[in-house]
């Protein structure tokens, strides 16, 4: 099933704000085996110039995924989610994400292509503070394997 080309460029406005919690940052860091004190110890983070613990660089996916679901599950887009694999992920930071940040995410469908018979969807989720300070852009590439193809 081809992706609907009319959706390229479509922008999904932010939902409710996401408050980055100190314990969530610590929990995420622990889950990825990251004992960097900047992610756990407020005083250490402060010594590096941060107001609170710093999120590991891939933590933004936790925030982006919530926003992304609205886009990739949009019925008009035509993505067969049951056949999706995560093909590519990229983050670009304007400034670090830290506990205490209250952020909103705007998601844009950047491209919807067919690659070797498979649907390939690229979205960009822009994370900013509620007052509009940009923090991070997250590019997510999903590949929906063509029906009938087995891995």
């Amino acid at each position, binding site marked *: 099933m081809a992706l609907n080309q009319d959706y390229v460029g479509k922008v999904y406005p932010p939902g409710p704000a996401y408050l980055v919690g100190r314990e969530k940052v610590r929990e995420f860091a622990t*889950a990825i085996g990251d004992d960097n004190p900047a992610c756990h110890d407020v005083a250490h983070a402060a010594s590096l110039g*941060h107001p609170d613990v710093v999120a590991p660089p*891939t933590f933004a*996916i936790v925030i982006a995924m919530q926003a992304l679901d609205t886009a990739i599950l949009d019925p008009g887009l035509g993505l067969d989610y049951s056949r999706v694999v*995560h093909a*590519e992920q*990229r983050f670009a930071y304007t400034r*670090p994400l830290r506990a205490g940040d209250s952020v909103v995410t705007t998601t844009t469908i950047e491209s919807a292509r067919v690659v070797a018979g498979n649907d390939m969807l690229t979205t960009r989720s822009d994370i900013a503070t509620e007052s509009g300070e940009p923090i991070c852009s997250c590019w997510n590439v999903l590949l929906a394997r063509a029906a009938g193809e087995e891995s």
Partner: protein
Amino acid sequence: MAATVAFADVEVGTELPPLTARFTRATLVGYAGASGDFNPIHWNQRVAREVGLPDVIAHGMLTMATAGRVVTDWVGDPGAVLEYGVRFTRPVVVPDDDAGATVEITGVVADKRDDGTVRVDLTARFEGQTVLGRAQAVVRLP
């Protein structure tokens, strides 16, 4: 632990301290809970096999996050990472045993720029094969 490396001390070809990570089913359950990604292919063998996988596989984002530690451990401040991107090229299959899956990660400085940043290229290997493609991070060094 402040930033452990300075721009002036780094050259193209400088190798970062490598890292060996072990993913067990418990690691995957922990990452599922922390990240909110509860896709059953990461914890349910029956579902994984139904979709054609050999067994439960690790979240690609867990592998990406773990590989990123090579960079953040090196620079000290995770906030020094300006860009980080990967392609997911092969799954990391995690058996239901105590040994789990072992992923070996290495990093090397591939570019040094006039703006005080360096690009680190990362390699993640599982069972001798790379599982990430074009894994690159751009970091600002003091």
